[in-house]
């Protein structure tokens, strides 16, 4: 039962990453791509939790903690870059 749930979590997280990949490729604005990156971050955290459930090791939870922090800083950085370039005409 538990391994089935972990499998379902992995499959759904990968599906979410696939959909986000489509949004990154399609755009059309840079803000859309950063939003899709946010989905990638959420999928990565979910996959890290699934990995630690599948193996029974807590190290993957430490990976998820690091991902959550780094992803936040990355999102803020990209948002500031897009914002500062917004007034410079067509991309």
């Amino acid at each position, binding site marked *: *039962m*538990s391994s*089935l*749930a*972990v499998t*379902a*979590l992995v*499959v*759904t*997280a990968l*599906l*979410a*990453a*696939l*959909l*986000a990949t*489509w*949004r990154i490729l399609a755009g059309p*604005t*840079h*803000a*859309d791509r*950063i*939003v*899709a990156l*946010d*989905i990638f971050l*959420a*999928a990565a*955290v*979910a996959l890290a*939790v*699934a990995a*630690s*459930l599948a193996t*029974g090791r*807590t190290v993957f*939870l*430490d990976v*998820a*903690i690091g991902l*959550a*922090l780094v992803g*936040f800083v990355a*999102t*803020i950085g990209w*948002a*500031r870059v*897009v*914002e500062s370039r*917004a*007034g410079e005409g067509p991309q």
Partner: protein
Amino acid sequence: MSLLGALLLVLGGLLLVLAAWGVIVLPDALARQHAATKAGTLALALVCIGALLQVPDTAWAWRLALILGFLLATLPVASHLLARAAVREAGMDVAVREAPRVDAPPG
């Protein structure tokens, strides 16, 4: 307890797919940002609580609580900055500046 945990894990995964689906189908960056951050936060909260119910252990509990705490503290800020970037990039600054304010006198 384990059954509830498994249910929450699956529900979290489905909600994550729903968030990604919203990022695909919604019309502009502002609406997409809403789908990604709100549904994404709830999805990760469900996944963390589900994992906690699966493995009732102290070492797991405080790590999962730390992940959840970081996400709940940081995702609203990221959401706000994303919305601001989307507004600036779409050139909606003027519309935002001219929109009626809450504290403005009527008329």
